[in-house]
Structure formats: structure tokens, C-alpha cells
């Protein structure tokens, strides 16, 4: 059982999606039942995987039992297992929102949702570049489908732009893969880590060009300035449940960059990204101040959170990277909560939708207002939720002496203040500037959406409560990335002939 564990997170969604397409084309109830069964199975498998790597083991699954550099390998270590568990949990929670609001507005919601999850799991677990590309494409195709789910002119034009941007990025990805293969003769992360030091200097330029192109692709997926323009429109107009899942999608870019630079390129430092992280923070925070709708606001808030994340990833020590990864989990939960909340507000306000404007009173105003208050606390990073601990741990790990460290402090704190202003402005407009007493006339928010929102917010609280062990876990995971000896050993291990 344990031997096959790393492939199950990929197999379960793809099989369940196939079954759904075959059996439940017309039967929404059956599709929902299958979807919940699949989500439960993924949670179980992800938990088992998480438990199996807890002591720092690296599980390697060789497809067809081909040895590593020739065959396809899936690798689960501390970091990827944690990411898989996060994906499974987020998927299961968002399903609650989906069945109450979204899955009957178009066809094939549930299979697309499962394919989306499959692509994300695969991207976290894959051990080589080409399968990273394939899983990225699976993830993107499913995201195009989910993004236009329900239709509508604004949604379609924004999805078209998102798709064109990502297709260009996919071309760059393939160029980069070809360059790296040309220089190193391998696409396996572990094999590459071993070969990079031995590449002759005449081929180093090709390798670096490939690496730089790949960086551009990952930074685009992560929406780091100056490649962030597509995100607010695309996520802000996507169906709320899809946007909430996409909060995880941009983290996949950050994860891939980390894996590629630290393992594949043998410890290339990401310190050069620190100025970009500052600009990303600033762009996100200013966008939150100016956002016209709550959906776009949530998009800018996730850009700001990517900025904080990259301030962490720019460090070269385990404490800072670990704090960044802890924040990654938090910002996924907080970002998803904001998107779900924007969607709920859109569903209960008749005239204004999720526009950041006052308007008629609506049912469930106190409930959604309270939810917004907590989600804003999480997004800004105020106690008692986990954003505060994440930012605190991150800032404590950055030495203030020296220009870059001090600038990181300033940018994180100023951006947090701007976020606080922007979210207060949006919240007081939407939830306090109401007229009349239309509360009875409109229907309240759907129970499933409220449950999903409550679970996500409870998740950030739990994440704050387990901060000690979680930070220790991610610091160990970061240590394993900085010294990938065990990873390389496990993948390349016994039975390799060259």
C-alpha cells in the first residue's frame, strides 16, 4: 500500500473524473455524490502520504519501475506531501460551496474540478521538468474550463486573456525545457542536481538561459510584478469557487520555482527576486485600495500575499524559507476565504453585486460582515489568526542590518498597513453603508458557502494554534530543499545504471 501512495493523489481524481463523465452527464446528484467520495478519498490518501514522510523520508514512485533518469518518477517529500494535503483539504471544503452555488450553472463542473485537483497534485509530486509541464497543462486546461463556467461576457473576455497569456507562457516553458535538456542531457530534478556541477562552461550559458526562461514562466504563474497584470481580472471575474481554488494555483508557481532553483539547479539563490517581491507587495496593496469589486480586491490581496511569500523565498536560510512556506499555507486559506466571501456577497446583493459600494440592505449582512472582518484580519496579518504568526516569523528571520533586510521589513509593514486601509474601506462601504430594510426581501447566503467560509477561517485559526510544530516542520522541509542530498539519493538510489 505504502509503495503506491505517491501515485494515488493523481489517480483518484483522474479516475473519478472519468467515471463522472461516463455515468453522470445528466445526473447532477450522482456527480455530487461521486465528487464527495473522491474528495474524501483524496483527504485520506493525502493524510497517509503526509504521515508517511513525517520523519523526513523521501518516497519515490517509479512508474513502470523504470530507473530514475529514464523513467518517470513521482517524489513525495515533506514539502510536497504538505502541499498535497493542503490541496485535498481546500478541494473538499470548496466542494461545499460548489454544490450550493455553482455546479448547476453549466455542465461538467465536477469532472473539471477533479481534473484541476489532479493537475495540482501532479505538479507538486512530479520529479522531472517535462511532467511538470504536462501537469501544468492539465491544471491550466481545467482552469480554463472552470473559469468560463457559467458564461457571461466579462468572464469570457477575461478568460480569453488569461488563456492567451498562459499559452505564451507554455511555449516559453517548452523552450526552457529544451534548453535545459540540451545543456544537461536530463530533465529529472535529482539527476540535474548531480550533473549541473559537471556541465562544461561552454554549455553553461544555455543552461542559464533555460533557467532564466523557466523563472519567467514560474513568476508569471505566481503573478509576481511585472507579470501580475492578468490575475485580478481573471480571478476577479471567475466563478467564486474556481477563484478560491486558483488561490492555490499561483502558489504552484512559487513551489515549482523553489524546487527548480534549489534542487534542480543545485542551490541557485533566489535573492535577486527580493526587489520584485517588494514591488509585488506594493502593487497588491495599492490594488486592494483601488479595487472596484470584492472579487478584484481578493485578486489583489492574493498578489500582495505572493509578495510576502517571495520575501520569504528570497532568503537562503531554512528559518526564512520555512516561515515563507508557513505563510504560503496561510495565504492560500485566507485568499480562498476572501474569494468565497466575495462570491457570497455577489449572490445576495441584487443591484450592486460584489461592487465596493453601499446599497440596499441585504439578508445575512451581519453574518457576511463578520466573515469579512475575520477574512480581512487573516489577509492583513493581525492576531489571532495565522497571518500574524506567519509575518512575525518571517520578519524575525530577516536580519535588519544591511539594506535588503531593512527594506523587506519596511515593505512588508507598509503593505500590511495599506491592506488594512483598503480592506477597512471596502468592508465599511459594503456592509455599513446600507439603506432601507430590504433584508427580508432578499434571500440569505447559501448554507454550503457559509460553511466553506467558516471552515476556511477556522483553518487559519487552527493553523495559528499549531504554529510551533508547523513552523518546525516547514523549516525542516526547507532544510531538505537547501541540502537536497537525501532527495537526490532517494530518486537516483539503487538500481541506476549509467
Amino acid at each position, binding site marked *: 500500500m505504502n509503495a503506491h501512495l505517491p501515485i494515488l493523489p493523481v489517480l483518484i481524481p483522474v479516475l473519478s473524473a472519468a467515471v463522472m463523465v461516463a455515468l453522470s452527464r445528466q445526473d447532477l446528484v450522482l456527480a455530487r455524490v461521486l465528487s464527495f467520495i473522491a474528495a474524501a478519498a483524496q483527504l485520506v490518501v493525502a493524510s497517509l502520504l503526509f504521515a508517511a514522510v513525517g520523519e523526513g523520508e523521501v518516497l519515490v514512485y517509479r512508474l513502470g519501475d523504470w530507473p530514475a533518469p529514464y523513467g518517470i518518477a513521482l517524489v513525495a517529500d515533506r514539502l510536497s506531501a504538505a502541499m498535497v494535503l493542503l490541496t485535498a483539504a481546500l478541494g473538499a471544503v470548496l466542494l461545499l460551496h460548489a454544490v450550493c452555488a455553482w455546479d448547476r450553472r453549466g455542465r461538467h463542473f465536477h469532472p473539471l474540478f477533479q481534473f484541476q485537483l489532479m493537475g495540482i497534485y501532479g505538479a507538486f509530486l512530479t520529479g522531472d521538468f*517535462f511532467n511538470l509541464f*504536462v501537469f501544468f*497543462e492539465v491544471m491550466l*486546461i481545467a482552469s*480554463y474550463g472552470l473559469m*468560463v463556467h457559467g*458564461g*457571461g*461576457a*466579462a*468572464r*469570457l*473576455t*477575461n*478568460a*480569453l*486573456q488569461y*488563456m*492567451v497569456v498562459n*499559452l*505564451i507562457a*507554455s*511555449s516559453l516553458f*517548452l*523552450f526552457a*525545457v*529544451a*534548453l535545459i*535538456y*540540451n545543456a544537461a542531457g536530463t530533465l529529472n530534478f535529482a539527476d540535474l542536481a548531480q550533473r549541473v556541477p559537471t556541465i562544461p562552461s561552454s554549455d553553461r550559458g544555455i543552461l542559464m538561459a533555460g533557467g532564466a526562461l523557466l523563472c519567467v514562466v514560474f513568476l508569471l504563474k505566481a503573478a509576481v510584478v511585472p507579470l501580475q497584470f492578468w490575475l485580478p*481580472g481573471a480571478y476577479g*471575474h471567475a466563478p467564486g469557487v474556481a477563484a478560491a481554488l486558483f488561490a492555490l494555483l499561483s502558489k504552484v508557481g512559487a513551489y515549482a520555482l523553489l524546487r527548480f532553483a534549489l534542487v534542480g539547479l543545485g542551490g541557485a539563490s533566489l535573492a535577486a527576486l527580493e526587489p520584485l517581491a517588494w514591488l509585488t507587495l506594493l502593487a497588491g496593496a495599492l490594488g486592494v485600495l483601488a479595487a*472596484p*469589486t470584492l472579487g478584484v480586491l481578493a485578486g489583489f490581496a492574493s498578489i500582495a500575499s505572493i509578495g510576502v511569500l517571495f520575501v520569504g523565498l528570497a532568503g537562503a536560510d531554512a528559518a526564512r524559507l520555512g516561515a515563507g512556506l508557513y505563510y504560503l499555507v496561510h495565504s492560500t486559506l485566507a485568499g480562498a476565504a476572501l474569494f468565497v466571501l466575495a462570491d457570497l456577497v*455577489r*449572490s445576495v446583493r441584487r*443591484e*450592486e*453585486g460584489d*461592487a465596493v*459600494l453601499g446599497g440596499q440592505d441585504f439578508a445575512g449582512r451581519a453574518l457576511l460582515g463578520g466573515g469579512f472582518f475575520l477574512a480581512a484580519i487573516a489577509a492583513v496579518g493581525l492576531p489571532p489568526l495565522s497571518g500574524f504568526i506567519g509575518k512575525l516569523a518571517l520578519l524575525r528571520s530577516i536580519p535588519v542590518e544591511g539594506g535588503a533586510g531593512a527594506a523587506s521589513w519596511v515593505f512588508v509593514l507598509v503593505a500590511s498597513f495599506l491592506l488594512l486601509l483598503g480592506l477597512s474601506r471596502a468592508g465599511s462601504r459594503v456592509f455599513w453603508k446600507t439603506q432601507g430594510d430590504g433584508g427580508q426581501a432578499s434571500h440569505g447566503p447559501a448554507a454550503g458557502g457559509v460553511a466553506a467560509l467558516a471552515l476556511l477561517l477556522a483553518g487559519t485559526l487552527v493553523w495559528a494554534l499549531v504554529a510551533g510544530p508547523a513552523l518546525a516542520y516547514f523549516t525542516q522541509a526547507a532544510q531538505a530543499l537547501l541540502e537536497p542530498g537525501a532527495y537526490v539519493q532517494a530518486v537516483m538510489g539503487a538500481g541506476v545504471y549509467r
Partner: protein
Amino acid sequence: MEILFAVLIAALTAAGIYLCCLRQVFPVVLGLSLLSYATNLFVFVAGRLTVGAPPVWAEGVTRFADPLPQALVLTAIVISFGMTALLVVLAIRARFESGAERSDVPAVTDRVEVER
């Protein structure tokens, strides 16, 4: 042969990027197709160009064509084909829903549209 490939890939890439910059949906679709052709050719030659060599290593053979890029390019062709088809469908839907034929998003106005 290297020169021929390099010029071909460069021309396809340049044409693709130019068409993508036109911001009309149909040229962008064509541009992305050209770009994917350029990519496929580029991946194809990533294992270095060889003529008349066997594709798989065998006893006594010292010069052989690298089979891996050919396998990669097959996958890449399938994916880019599927993507282009999806993009065309999406562009047609967007054309009918919004009446616009542009691939960029109009500037944000003060009026906020409510979507449901």
C-alpha cells in the same frame, strides 16, 4: 542544417510574437499556432541534430539520434493542438457574448457590471 533550423525557428517565433501583439482574436490564434510550431521544432532539435543515425543505442553504435526529444515533442504537439482548439471555441463564445473581437480586456470604467 543548423543554420536552416535556426532561421526557421527564428522566423516562426518572430511571426508568432508579432501576431500575438495585434490584439485581435484571430491573429492571436494564428500567432500562438506559429509560436507552438517554433517551440516544437526547437524541442525536436534539443537533442542535437543528427542525420541518418539509429534512434536507439545498440552494441557497437557510437553515433545515435536522441529519442527523448522526439517523445517530448509528440506530447507537446498533442497539448498545443488541444489548446488551440479550446482557444478557438472560447474565442467564438466570447465573440457571441460580448460582440468584441479583441483579445485584450477593455479598460475599467466606473460602471460596475454585476455578474451572476
